[in-house]
């Protein structure tokens, strides 16, 4: 069923009884051409595989419910404001896909490009912001350098007067913004399902069928499934799943907490990040301030964090914009992040033929969803990398080709 205002009108007048399930609930078939594990980035991959690369017989296996992984647990920010040449064109590709996503999927995932401002607080930070902003422009993205006057106009509520680290300006990307995260995976799922992709929820992959270095399928909680090619897109569970194929990854799993306040009338102009601490914030369409900061910093699969990080994040928030002191934090949650050794992801073949890996997104995977899915689909379909993801290789540390935006080295909890 195609969604439209007309349909809403018609259904509204007839008691909304005619809406159909957004996806089927099939049982897994014995064999597929492509099996994708994980319905976050994997859902996007399945959609593009079917739509762009015209593949058939595709299944997406999801351990929990659709969107139960990090796609449904993030602060919903999209941006293409990277520095490294291996990253920026990829994220700009993703941004372009976001910009057409709703029409492409016939699903309003509320892509809201209200801008993102990275506030900086020192001359060296300004220099770094300028280098990054220029890199953005050279990749075809948009960027502006705001001085404090510009910033006062856009965000008069920042602490300009009494800050421990005075605000010197901001790097501004007008096309940055937010997307309703759950709606992304629902939109992809609905569209993929319509193209014949089998989405199988509550189906955990328990092992891989590997013979002579070739992956021929997976074992699941719903029985074995044969596959021509298997793609793994399981974010925080990357190490756990790939270990079943005997593969060790340059990845650690960490917990990232995120926060949302009670609903409030519009207060923020877009996404704002703090440069003298770790704090980023935006406001959802419902009015909640959605914010976050550092990961807790220790290996964890617990999907929950601890109090010191909560305090640290709120300290950053109050230092940057002390008007939020009387807003109340409503909910905090934790997701498991697949922190890679240089803070950048992998979309690559593995040592096992027919087994492909997508992961290492750290806590920046959400914004990459469309491009990650597209490039993963390209890799699965053609057995070679898409141009914008060609550097996201698993062997890059062996070769010494680091994609380390932050410049902190092989220390996952600092990326």
């Amino acid at each position, binding site marked *: 069923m195609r969604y439209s205002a007309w349909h809403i009108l018609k259904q509204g007048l007839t008691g909304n009884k005619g809406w159909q399930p957004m996806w089927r609930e099939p049982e897994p078939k014995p064999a597929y051409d492509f099996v994708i594990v994980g319905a976050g980035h994997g859902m996007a991959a399945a959609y593009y595989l079917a739509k762009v690369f015209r593949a058939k017989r595709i299944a997406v296996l999801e351990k929990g419910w659709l969107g139960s992984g990090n796609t449904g647990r993030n602060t919903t920010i999209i941006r293409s404001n990277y520095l490294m040449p291996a990253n920026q064109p990829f994220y700009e590709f993703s941004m372009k896909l976001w910009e057409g996503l709703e029409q492409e999927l016939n699903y309003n995932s509320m892509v809201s490009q209200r801008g993102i401002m990275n506030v900086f607080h020192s001359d060296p930070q300004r*220099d770094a912001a300028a280098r990054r902003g220029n890199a953005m422009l050279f990749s075809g993205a948009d960027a502006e350098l705001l001085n404090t006057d510009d910033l006062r106009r856009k965000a008069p509520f920042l602490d300009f007067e009494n800050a421990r680290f005075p605000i010197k300006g901001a790097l501004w990307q007008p096309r940055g913004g937010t997307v309703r995260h759950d709606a992304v995976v629902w939109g992809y799922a609905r569209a993929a399902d319509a193209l014949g992709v089998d989405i199988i929820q509550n189906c955990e992959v328990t092992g891989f069928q590997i013979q002579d270095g070739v992956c021929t399928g997976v074992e699941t909680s719903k029985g074995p499934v044969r596959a021509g090619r298997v793609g793994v897109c399981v974010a925080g569970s990357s190490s756990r799943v790939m270990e079943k194929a005997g593969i060790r990854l340059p990845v650690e799993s960490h917990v990232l907490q995120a926060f949302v306040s009670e609903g409030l009338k519009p207060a923020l102009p877009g996404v704002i990040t703090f440069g003298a601490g770790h704090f980023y914030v935006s406001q959802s369409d419902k009015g909640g301030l959605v914010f976050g900061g550092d990961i807790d910093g220790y290996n964890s699969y617990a999907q929950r964090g601890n109090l010191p990080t909560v305090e640290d994040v709120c300290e950053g928030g109050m230092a940057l914009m002390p008007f939020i002191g*009387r807003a109340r934090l409503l909910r*905090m949650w934790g997701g498991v992040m697949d922190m890679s050794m240089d803070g950048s992801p992998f979309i690559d073949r593995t040592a096992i033929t027919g087994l492909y890996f997508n992961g290492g997104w750290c806590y920046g995977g959400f914004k990459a969803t469309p491009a990650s899915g597209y490039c993963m689909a390209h890799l699965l379909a053609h057995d070679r990398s898409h141009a914008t993801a060609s550097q996201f290789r698993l062997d890059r540390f062996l070769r010494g080709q680091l994609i380390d935006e932050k410049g902190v080295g092989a220390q996952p909890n600092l990326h």
Partner: protein
Amino acid sequence: MTQPNRVTGGLINRDAALGFSFNGKSMTGHPGDTLASALLANGQKLVGRSFKYHRPRGIFTAGSEEPNALVQLRRGGHCEPNSRATVVELFEGLAAESQNHRPSLEFDLMAVNDLLSPFLSAGFYYKTFMWPKRFWERVYEPVIRASAGLGKLSMLADPDQYDKGFLHCDLLVIGAGPAGLSAALAAGRAGVRVIIADEDFLPGGRLNLESQSIDGVAGSEWAAACAAELDSLDNVRCMRRMTVFGAYDHGIFGAVERKTDHLAESAGKPRQILWRIYAQRSLVCTGATERAIAFGGNDRPNVMLAGAARGFLNRFGVAAGRRIAVFTNNDSGWRTAADFAKAGLDVAAIIDTRETPRVSGPGDVTNLLGRRVVATSGRKSIRSITLSDGLRLSVDCLAVSGGWSPNLQLTCHKRNRPRWEERVAAFVPGSDPDRGMRVAGAVDGQFTLAGCLRAGQEAGIGAAVEFGRAAPALELPRVEAEGCGITPFWHVAESRGRCWLDLQNDVTVKDVELSHREGFKSVEHLKRYTTLGMATDQGKTANVPALAIMASLTGTSIEKTGTTIYRPPYTPVSIGTLAGRSRGREFRPTRLTPSHEWAHARGAVFVEAGNWLRAQWFPIEGETHWRQSVDREVIATRRSVGICDVTTLGKIDIQGRDANLFLNRVYANGFATLAVGRVRYGLMLREDGIAYDDGTTARLGDNHYVMTTTTANAVLVFRQLEFARQCLWPELDVHLISVTDGWAQFAVAGPNSRALLSKLVTEDISNHAFPFMACGDVTLCGKVPGRLFRISFSGELAYEVAVPSRYGNSMMATLMQAGEEFDAVPYGTEALGVMRIEKGHAAGNELNGHTTALNLGLGRMVSQKKDCIGNVLSRREEMNSPDALRLMGFRPVDRGEELSAGAHFFAKGEARNMQNDQGWLSSAAWSPILGHSIGLGFIRDGANRIGGEVIAADPLRGREVTAEIVSPHFLDPEGERLRG
């Protein structure tokens, strides 16, 4: 003004009156009132508008679970949106406004949404607003945003203060109802260190809201006596107005104590305190929250939970209605009828969904069994109800009870799953909520008062025994027998109107059905698709009925359907409280250099360097632009002598028999041959071969070294060295201590630096006796012990002199005094930066964690003949490509143009895109010595391109400069000055 609905009784002080206002209307209440009870007493039934349909709403509960009665409290910067009237303590002068309406609470134009509700069902927005494409951000979204949200923030900085504190105890009792009080008393009397916390200002929990008696006295009296005894025990801390909001690892709890929220002014005291509680054992006695039944029009003002209706009556002496009806599926609802009848109020009927409940009500009240409320009428307050048999009753309040849900949130914060208990038709905590955590009372499905008192006492005694204390069992207090029977009933299916589940977010039964129809069947999907339970009340009264309805739609059990994950906080917590005092200038500690006072007196401009404040430049009279000051400082230093406080550099004292071997392993270049009395520049790599830090290390004795690091990396390098010492090479005899704060250190730079220092230093520091890269202990001013290092960052003849920190400020003054004859200047970080760029030294912009020794032009320093951190992985292929980036100098071909850091390099004539990107300009400065702009930057194959021209493109700032590639050493490339 009178309080028309105030009746007798209650725990309020009727001798005092408190004036307050609601939407500008003056009203009065009494100490002991909440805003909600005072509003009801004044007859204010309509208090808010719902989130989506802007439906008129009244007070629904008497506690922190309130979904409807949200107000803007206080004014100006103190304004607090979304405050639940049911927990706001009344104070004199309180000002509250209702929220989420235009133009007024009584007449809200946005209520047009209610008429459009057939088209605004769950998730409707996912299906539309897509055409034309540009309209989403320009038209639809702004409209949606403006109509969504609830309260308004003032946009002013929060004027209040917040504190943080730490508490330790043997036993933390959470909740001071009958179970919690009993437990705390039993454990407290046995000598256990107890903290008991309750969110209310009055301990007692439901005892204050019910009419039950204990040992012949009113429950509230019994509670007050318990609290008084707890207050009298030294080993017990009874904390009121304190919400334990989260359970974290290893017995740590987060709690908020509201210190001044109940006062008109905070008067300089902290508004709230964030407590981190470390508890050996915890006992959750958080009680239970009543839930509603979904039926047509169940959202009208004065449709209220039954426990709240009698709570207002018993605790506050407020009659929510003069003619009420009770609609219940369980025994507890009958108590409301009994209490109202006893107070002489008219009870129209008790409507029980059960055919044969084993409970009896007040004699003269009509019992309508096996019947249901199917519809209600009334706009700003309920006026009548219609039953399943067609009977219509006119009422002004409907008290509803769908049963009780234990407040088990804290037992699930660590992701333990609750279990469904059929006996009470509710989720109760799983068998092992958490190590060290126990539960007692209603939270455990123990819904009778006798049961709560017994369970509490047993748990208190149990805790005492665990702590090795004798705790004799006491005689249990006597209470009346009561029933707690329930037959689950969630939804009146024959209702034709909308049946609300989540009152705040306007989620109805139809939305749950739609969610199911469209494939959103898991509870998490239900929540995310319909927004059920995502409002400020977190669905405390709504979630269980909704998931029960979903369970019936999917044909699975409620237990299997499960709950969504409970996460902190239990009730919302102010962001200001979580930040505490770490805001404004107190956001992070400020470190001052030893000569800060001197520099401040001299009028220095300071700049943040990490947590340090450093002098950036020292303006003198007549200088109006920073460049004038900086140029003067550079020129004066290079011509004569300048002095700079460099204390912020990290200093690490390294001693031990193996100190030499240790240094040789942590630095990439060789240190084995460093002689006593000599300094060497050292480059440190990370294990991944990237340049980490640089600095100098001086050998003061055979087994004694002092290392300097950059300011930025002082902490990190020290950590790394401790790691190397303890974990990588534990066999080495080497000891480290950070002496950054122990020594004040000053750079004395310029051709006259030796002449200046000779006046102060006792020892011979001639070029012969104390050559370039010499170091040693010296005596200053005839008595002060110091250290002198002949090292240079500026490229001039230069020294760094260190004295114990306490001499730092006077040392600066003394140096300046001694330098008067040379026209010595103090210089700040800007001049330091200009001089290091002129000299071609890398600093933070170059040592940015991306660059290798090779990139920095220091490739040959990395020894491959020894084991040292980083050398193996620095050999990797991609890090050694023939055209690798090299640090070079740049100057504008047109000397009048200005280079800017952050520009990227392109070959002339090539398109400005990422494929053609050749590197970037990392640092730029105006060189007052050379009289033009200069820069350092990284460019591909730079070493072989000296003399070539490139474009430095900075479109971000609209600049493009043709630059010549030159040696990074703009000044004195042979180093003659510093050796002179």
